[in-house]
């Protein structure tokens, strides 16, 4: 093909890089006619409608692309069970249940600690008591809750407490009676000077300012 005709074609399609100027080329009548002929045909081709394949073909291609790439296609995504949703539910539900269980456990512990039935170190007399142990005197006037132990079982069998007749208590009571003075002072009498108390010779005691 002649260079002039080749350059005309390259100009026509915009591919001309170092081709000679179009105006110079078109001064030639033959090239001018060639340019007009080619331009007319090209114009019709440029305005030709584009054609597309059927949509079903496109869908089949995309499904194949998903399968080959290891992805579930649109159809299988619709049909499969909602595994993802279950997993998400578990992710939320398990921590929530754990927190709820911890709160309930904490409330239970707190309620148990605050209740009078609870066993605590501050109440050792009750906590450590057993049917065979001797009962200390300071615990006699304390409230002893009803518990399923030896004391309760004895009281249910007999209205008297089990320690009423304990030998230790009776012995203790006798010692208290022995220690009690025979001539007791009446708390309502006037104060009596020490020198006037019978049996007092003043040897053992001195008044303030008194010399030996």
């Amino acid at each position: 093909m002649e260079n002039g005709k080749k350059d005309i074609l390259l100009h026509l399609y915009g591919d001309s890089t170092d081709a000679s100027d179009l105006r110079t080329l078109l001064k030639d009548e033959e090239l001018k006619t060639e340019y007009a002929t080619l331009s007319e045909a090209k114009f019709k081709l440029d305005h030709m409608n584009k054609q597309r394949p059927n949509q079903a073909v496109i869908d089949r291609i995309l499904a194949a692309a998903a399968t080959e790439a290891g992805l579930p296609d649109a159809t299988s995504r619709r049909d499969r069970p909602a595994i993802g949703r279950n997993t998400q539910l578990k992710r939320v539900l398990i921590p929530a249940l754990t927190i709820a269980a911890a709160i309930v456990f904490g409330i239970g512990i707190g309620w148990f600690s605050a209740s009078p039935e609870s066993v605590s170190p501050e109440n050792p007399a009750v906590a450590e008591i057993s049917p065979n142990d001797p009962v200390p005197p300071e615990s006699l006037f304390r409230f002893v809750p009803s518990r399923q132990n030896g004391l309760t079982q004895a009281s249910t069998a007999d209205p008297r407490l089990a320690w009423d007749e304990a030998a230790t208590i009776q012995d203790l009571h006798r010692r208290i009676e022995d220690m009690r003075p025979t001539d007791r002072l009446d708390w309502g009498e006037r104060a009596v000077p020490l020198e006037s108390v019978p049996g007092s010779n003043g040897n053992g005691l001195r008044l303030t300012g008194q010399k030996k």
Partner: protein
Amino acid sequence: MHPADEVLVLRYVEDADQAAFSTLVNRHQERVFGYLQGMVRDREVANDLFQETFLRVIKALNKDRGSYTVQGKFLGWVLRIARNAALDHLRAKKKWQDVSSLNGEEDTSYWDRLPDDGPSADVQLHASEQNDLLRECIERLPEEQREVLLLRHESDLTFREIADLTGCSINTALGRMRYALINLRRMMSTTAISDLTEVGQ
């Protein structure tokens, strides 16, 4: 800004991004299908070849990843696959025609002798729009000229890319294009004259 073909190919191959592949198909469907239909001159066959082309593309991208190595030439690579599919079809069709000729039958293909319930060629031309007339004329072009014209106008390839794809020199590609345009204009003028003649009668 639209992502380049290479970016979309990487997204599909590396990340299994189906949307990226869908974009590629939608972007190039007219270029590939227009070429195929112009070559085989049958819409149903063109649909089959289009599907076959992209199935080969999918397989090549996923399993034979080494087959696509030319960066920035995705459309050229797809068109090469489409061209091979079209040439396979045309060779198979020609084989049928040759077998018919060897049997001493008429010099027409098996497909041409199938009963045609449609209107005659002349009536079809009259009924068709200008666009259909143009396509009819393209179909009547010699195969080599038609291929260059389709690759340029339907697939938007440069003459250098056309030369690379068809295995000829750029001068040969330009020469084929020039003859295709001249023949096309002549055919359309002839058709227009015959139309006017028939209208006058």
